[in-house]
């Protein structure tokens, strides 16, 4: 029989993995056709975390640690999403540049001053 503390830690780790997996599954599978998928996913992460925290507050023992882990995993997933937001906010915006009809103003071939038509 493993010590209770060790069991609880394992449960917490398992919960964290499950929380992260679940959050990622929700984002990539359940929300893939949603327009603001990242914002919605963020809300889902916080929702899972809230469930985990509430669960941990209501029960004792190994299952409480599992619930804590679930919350931690979901919040970790939220952190990754927020990091993506911060990265994009700092990047330059893409600017549209018109392209020209490619062959309209092609100069003659290199080395030749004669336009062959």
């Amino acid at each position: 029989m493993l010590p209770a503390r060790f069991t609880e830690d394992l449960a917490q780790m398992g919960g964290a993995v499950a929380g992260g997996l679940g959050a990622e599954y929700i984002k990539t599978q359940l929300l893939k056709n949603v327009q603001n998928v990242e914002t919605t996913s963020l809300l889902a992460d916080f929702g899972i975390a809230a469930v985990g925290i509430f669960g941990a507050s209501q029960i004792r023992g190994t299952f409480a640690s599992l619930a804590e882990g679930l919350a931690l995993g979901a919040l970790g997933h939220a952190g990754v999403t927020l990091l993506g937001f911060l990265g994009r906010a700092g990047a330059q915006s893409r600017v549209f540049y018109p392209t020209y009809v490619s062959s309209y103003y092609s100069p003659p071939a290199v080395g030749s001053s004669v336009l062959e038509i």
Partner: protein
Amino acid sequence: MRKELSILGQWTHTGTLAANTEWQPSAASGNAELDTDELAEVLYLEITPPVLPDGTIEPLEHVWPVLDETPIREYVNLCGRKDALMGPRMRHTYEGMIVPFGMGIVDSLHRPNPAPGLTATTLKYKDKLRIIARAGATDITQPFTITAWGYRYTEEELARILSAPEYSPVLNPSVTINDRGRGRVFSLSKAPIQVNAANWDRLPGGAKQEKPIIMPFFRWSRNAKATTVNMEYQFRYDIVGNVDLPEMDLYFTFDIKAKALLVKGLGVRAATNLKYTWINLSADTLHKEHPKGKLLTTVDYNPLHFGMAYPFWPADLPMYYAIPRFAGDDLLIYKELGYIAIQDNGTQVAANSVYVAINGVLFEMAE
């Protein structure tokens, strides 16, 4: 930066523009006056056409640029109607493709480009730019906007850019076009021009060139009369009633005039009963119709469609097609009679229903 694509001028008309009248705003009203030591070249004219709230297109039919108070309507005549729009907003063009007046001077003089006379045909001015807008047969009541995009430099800035080894500060406008299939060569000889403020408007695309003149050529037309069944319809101004204005003449009598036109694009907006569109070259001993066999252009199948993407895309989508490349290559009209023609399918095409547009480079030699 070597060049900055910027707005050289913008004019917005509000109120009513009466039928068959011209609006001639000043350069100052469009913020299109240059400083003393500045030079500019117009790459593209963007037109936001007038449309009634119910979608009815109002007839902004002609937009002509004026370079340093020299009108160039015989070279550049753009249609501003929403359906046959020749200057759609750059963000609204299919695949982002626009047809500019030419390549900017900096791009044209980047080595190797041994024939900048063919490419450096942007509209050049050194003092002020303005436009003339003419209404068609009915009043224009809705606002419209014309925006000139291009590059502006100070003389010192341009000299510094062109002093780099990868550029040439001298533009050699001489052009040779070898039309191998038809066994002929077009040669235009013109002395090299130092690119500076004094010579700016004498470069290709400038309004003060001495002959031979090299200018971009943009023109549109419409069949003012119904077609004659199974006969070609020519967009000739000298036949009374075929087209409305001389600036819409697509009948090039270069057999008697010392001019040549290098056609790069041809567009047509088909109408009911239209079947064929082509360019006819009278002196061609191989086949007078180009492309050979004519080009099928109907309301259901039109490879030359230009302007508003409708009817091939939904009408409420603000998308436009540029004038298509003609037959995948350039076509030379030189020392011959050349003209754009259309033909119906055995039933008349109604008057004022087919729009055609052409673009290329026009050469005017000394007589």
